[in-house]
């Protein structure tokens, strides 16, 4: 007992005060950025990107990174003959619309296309029934409509979730990297409970689902059932490149790419895997507490 008390005194509080205080990012390998002024549109990085995250801009023909598919492997910075790719220490990449993760992030200002397939659940939450997998869910009619109608409920959600949030984690086909990072939110360094955010054992107790991994075929039914078991209003977070877009496992016989092909997503947290702080940032962003 004496030894235990000694340890408690030795390490009184190791929790980092993120996001109130920024943490030291000097060591970390974060978001890769292609400098358009240095890029000569040679296509070297596009050809070799393992997850097909780098695409050619149709107008300038220069390379651009889609961060929903990027696996942060830094290969592009190695193969670029002109040194146009810079690896930054930026990790707070979570966004509410998947399009914002595409190179041209200003897309959200475009007019929202009409969607005829929106139904309302009993609670009044909108739900889009046509989830489009053909183009990796990018033009899924669910997203913008969900966002538009979701705005009407924003106040309601904030009121309900703003103070305390219960989260259920679902692995729908990850490599377990993201799961370990979500687990790390409970460690003494991150201690997510200081925000009133708890991980709960059942989706019936949850306000939010954090989904990791690509939408694996064998998990599809379980993911849908978990989503349906979660009472509305509810939030869904896609954690990691696989959940956002399918990542490196895209277009396999056994997966359906991003989880937005199965359930509507409210916040996309890219990374491979995203750091615990990046996940925390995404969760707080989803409930507008930043």
């Amino acid at each position: 007992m004496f030894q235990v008390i000694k340890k408690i005194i030795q390490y009184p509080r190791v929790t980092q005060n993120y996001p109130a205080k920024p943490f030291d990012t000097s060591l970390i390998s974060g978001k890769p950025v292609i400098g358009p002024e240095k890029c000569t549109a040679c296509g070297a990085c596009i050809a070799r990107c393992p997850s097909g995250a780098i695409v050619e801009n149709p107008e300038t023909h220069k390379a651009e990174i889609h961060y929903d598919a990027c696996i942060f492997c830094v290969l592009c910075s190695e193969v670029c003959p002109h040194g146009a790719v810079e690896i930054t220490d930026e990790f707070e990449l979570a966004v509410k619309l998947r399009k914002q993760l595409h190179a041209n992030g200003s897309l959200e200002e475009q007019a929202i296309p009409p969607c005829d397939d929106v139904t309302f659940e009993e609670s009044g939450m909108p739900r889009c029934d046509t989830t489009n997998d053909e183009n990796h869910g990018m033009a899924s009619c669910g997203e913008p409509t969900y966002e538009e109608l979701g705005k009407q409920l924003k106040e309601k959600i904030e009121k309900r979730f703003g103070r305390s949030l219960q989260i259920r984690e679902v692995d729908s086909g990850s490599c377990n990297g993201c799961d370990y990072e979500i687990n790390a939110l409970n460690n003494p360094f991150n201690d997510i409970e200081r925000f009133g955010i708890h991980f709960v054992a059942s989706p019936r107790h949850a306000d939010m689902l954090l989904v990791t991994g690509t939408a694996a075929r064998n998990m599809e039914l379980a993911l849908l059932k978990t989503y349906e078991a979660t009472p509305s209003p509810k939030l869904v977070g896609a954690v990691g490149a696989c959940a956002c877009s399918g990542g490196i496992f895209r277009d396999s016989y056994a997966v359906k790419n991003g989880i937005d092909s199965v359930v509507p997503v409210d916040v996309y947290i890219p990374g491979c895997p995203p750091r615990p702080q990046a996940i925390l940032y995404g969760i707080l962003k989803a409930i507008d507490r930043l």
Partner: protein
Amino acid sequence: MNKQEINSITALKKELLARHPELSKSEIHGNTLCLDTDSDSYQALCKNLNHKFAFPLVSMFASDNRASTGCFTIHTVFAHRQAGILISIALPVDPSYGAFPSLCDLIPAAALYEREIHDLFGLHPMGHPNPKRLVFHGNWPKNHYPLRSDYPAEKRPDFADERIEFTRIDGEGVYEIPVGPVHAGIIEPGHFRFSLAGEPILNLEAQLYFVHKGIEKLSEGKTIEHGFYLSERISGDETFTNSLTYCQAVEKIAGIKVPVRASFTRVLFAELERVTSHLGDLAGICQDVAYGFASYQFKMLRGWSYRIADELCGMRFLRSVNIPGGVRKDFVHGKEEILARLLSELQKELAETEAIVMRNSLFIDRIENTGILKNKIAVDLNATGPGGRASGVDFDVRTAFPYEVYTQLEFETPVQSDGDVSSRMKVKLAECFQSISLMLQVLERIPQGTVREEIGMLEPYRSAYGLTEAPRGENIHYVMVGENNTILRYKVRTPSFCSWPALCHAVSGNIVPDFPLINKSFNLSYAGNDL
């Protein structure tokens, strides 16, 4: 001649040819003896290797060689661990016949491999006592075999409604508890079907493959470079060891030796990964018995090991460190001092924590005699790593099949004999100290030099096995290359694949509330099993 006398690969070849004159081809590639057999003598040969010589079955998989030889091939791999030799047996299977003799009656460990081959290739194991589906669940239609070369990688068949029965235990008062695939904790998905009478568990059947992503198919036809990134994403917390196993196989095919500095660096990363993984398991064991102090202490130490990873490469999961031919850059240069300081701090704190935790009688009472894995079962099912070593399986790939620079470093392989949660915990704690000591030795002895060698153009249709000691045990990857540095077949067998059935045996007779504890003491990877 008994097995102790056969300590060289040529002697083994001679002995096997004397016993089996019908073997049509036998070649030696490095430490691998490749034999070609036919379906008539296949079982007798495997029986001899396993029963007579006591070589364990370490991997078994199929490949679709219809384009080149007109046949499928079943590769059955045994290991002569005392001499560091792999014996790879190739059995051709005629596509029009589509079946091969099952080894289940002779070698129990073959059961899962054969079911996997059936699901992925549609080749039937004749005489298999329970040939039900393994990889695919009820949603997968019949007669779709995705690993056949003519099956498009992106083809997603319609959902079917096939029924898969679980093993039923009958008797008065016997009932079932279904658990999963979505669990209460933050872990990966799997379905557990417990059959119980009263409190004790009679039988546990684990249905896995919920996170099956088709990694083997995705790698086919891709470049060696692409395959490397897939190998890093087989199992998150074993990123480095999986990529190392893949690199090792590719380097064997290329016939190159990585620079010594790269070898030392690889040992450093591999051991760091082991410590990080074990510290997480130790925290989990303590958490599952509600020993909060110890759990937080181990979690804090795991955080410290992530700090070391950040210091080394800026990636918590040690991704993009390896590369076929060495390591990406000189990660160690100029950091020796700070790393040695961080490691010494970790070592000191871990020792102090161990002293507190392992003296807590309440805790010891909970973990002793819980979840006993018998030595016989561990040996039969080829359970390796800490799970096997806690049950007296004295085997470590680092000493039996030495790779990188492990022969130049001093370390011990801790072995326990009780096979319970306590033994596994002791093994993992001891391994943490060994790994920290190995890392400190690396920092002292690492020589200057380059860290990367080009693999160049690989000779097509060559294949090799990579073999490493992952945090969870013996890890074997098979790589066969095609033309223009592409992958023809990539077979991954992680230690979790062998250890899952062992875990199911270890819980028998225990109560359901102890299952999470037993599960955590093995901490097997679902992703590494499901691929």
